[in-house]
């Protein structure tokens, strides 16, 4: 035997994971326990997302992997290679062409479609964890919808910083039932969580899978007098000139010069190819 089973995992394991995914889709926002396998990569590198992707992929799929929006970072490249080798599926960097997108910490800027699936890598799936360390207690809080504590966290933010300073992993209330951690995406991406595509979340170390089916109501928690705001840096992309995309700040030299660029590399590239230009587009900074 010198070949991997399709997508690395054995069929029994993929079935087990698919059952967890289906249960997650049936109960949006609910964390389904699953028997997470050892994967040939360390925890924290996306073992949960990889297992969910492995159970989701079919030979006809086209896979895109992004890390903080970029297709070309180590983590993204490694995972893409992993599935090229073990599943032989096609891969792409173009959001448009992908049928399955595995992501760490971003949602692509392009609107996702009903025939796409996005898989999030999740480090800590329990939004209540930092407030209540006991798993038995957090489970009970979810089952009884006792979510007052979530607002305590936001209260603390405002009282210490004058505004809700939680900028990523901003908690959401899914389908009027479960409070959910959307993984460490910037809160700029929170409004996109109400989308046409299927969203799957995998936490390998914590052994949890959860999901948001298409067109599900997702509300970001807030106060009446401190409403939720999807913020981003107040600049345009210096390469493609986009005003509506989430930006990374890049320090360029020791003098403190900096530039802002789209964190979604595919979005930036496609805009530049379409002729859009930013402040520094002429220089070869990228």
């Amino acid at each position, binding site marked *: 035997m010198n070949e991997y089973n399709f997508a690395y995992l054995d069929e029994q394991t993929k079935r087990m994971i698919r059952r967890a995914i289906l249960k997650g889709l049936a109960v949006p926002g609910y964390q389904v326990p699953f028997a997470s396998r050892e994967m040939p990569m360390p925890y924290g590198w996306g073992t949960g997302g990889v297992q969910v992707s492995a159970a989701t992929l079919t030979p006809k799929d086209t896979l895109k992997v992004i890390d903080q929006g970029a297709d070309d970072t180590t983590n993204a490249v490694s995972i893409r290679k992993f599935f090229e080798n073990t599943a032989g599926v096609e891969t792409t960097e173009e959001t448009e062409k992908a049928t399955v997108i595995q992501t760490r910490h971003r949602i692509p800027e392009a609107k996702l479609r009903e025939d796409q699936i996005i898989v999030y890598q999740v480090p800590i799936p329990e939004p209540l964890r930092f407030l209540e360390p006991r798993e038995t207690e957090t489970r009970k809080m979810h089952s009884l919808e*006792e979510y*007052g504590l979530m607002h305590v966290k936001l209260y603390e933010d405002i*009282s210490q910083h004058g505004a809700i300073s939680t900028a990523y992993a901003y908690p959401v209330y899914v389908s009027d039932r479960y409070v959910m951690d959307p993984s460490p995406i910037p809160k700029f991406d929170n409004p996109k969580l109400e989308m046409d595509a299927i969203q799957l979340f995998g936490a390998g170390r914590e052994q949890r899978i959860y999901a948001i089916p298409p067109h599900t109501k997702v509300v970001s928690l807030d106060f009446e007098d401190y409403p939720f705001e999807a913020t981003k840096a107040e600049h345009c992309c210096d390469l493609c000139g986009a005003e509506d995309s989430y930006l990374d700040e890049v320090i360029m030299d020791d003098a403190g010069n900096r530039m802002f660029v789209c964190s979604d590399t595919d979005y930036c590239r496609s805009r530049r190819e379409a002729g859009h230009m930013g402040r520094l587009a002429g220089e070869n900074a990228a």
Partner: protein
Amino acid sequence: MNPLLQVKGIEKRYGARIGCRDVSFDLYPSEVMGIVGESGSGKSTLLNCMAGHLQPDAGQVIFDTRADGPVDTVTMSEPERRMLSRTDWAFVHQHARDGLRVTISAGGNIGERLMAVGERHYGAIRGRAIDWLGRVEIDETRVDDRPSAFSGGMQQRLQIARNLVTGPRLVFMDEPTGGLDVSVQARLLDLLRGLVREMGLSAVIVTHDLAVVRLLADRLMVMKDGHVVEAGLTDQVLDDPQHAYTQLLVSSVLQV
């Protein structure tokens, strides 16, 4: 007038050992009842059975709920009981740290119960928190400080504020002044007395300190080996104790 709380035949066993047995009493609105006894007498077990922290092996704890009148809280569903325990009930722990979230500011601690019952206006929550800090005599400038930076007495007062902010009708207290300096105790007792009067609270206070019950409790129950050996008006039980154990207890108090 209906009793606010009716305790009927409460029994709790730990294997073959009896925690408490055959405890029954009625508590009326605005009444404060003390339960005294030495360590291991079953008074804390009883309190925890009443407050829903322990499942009694027998008996009923009937609470006169606002919506549905008298309901047995032992057999009510857990969500209902938990809702009760953060609205109409309060529980003051002996160690403030058990009743506070030490990593959260004083304001957040007080606001938690409000947010748990659906308050979503930051300004309103903060206003109530500051108001309550004042009522428990903590300077409002401490609203954003964590309780870990507070003295023991302040922590205990913060715990009380956190518990009373939703205007409960029944407060369970487990040794509320235990482990505090005498001067701090006096201040706390005075505060509790004032709040009980102002808010018309009913309370069940477990303590081994007879001075505490004399000042706070209208009625007194004396427990020994899991049984109630004597009950009555606080001053009557303390001044004219009938049971041998109560006489021993009263005569053992050091006079100052």
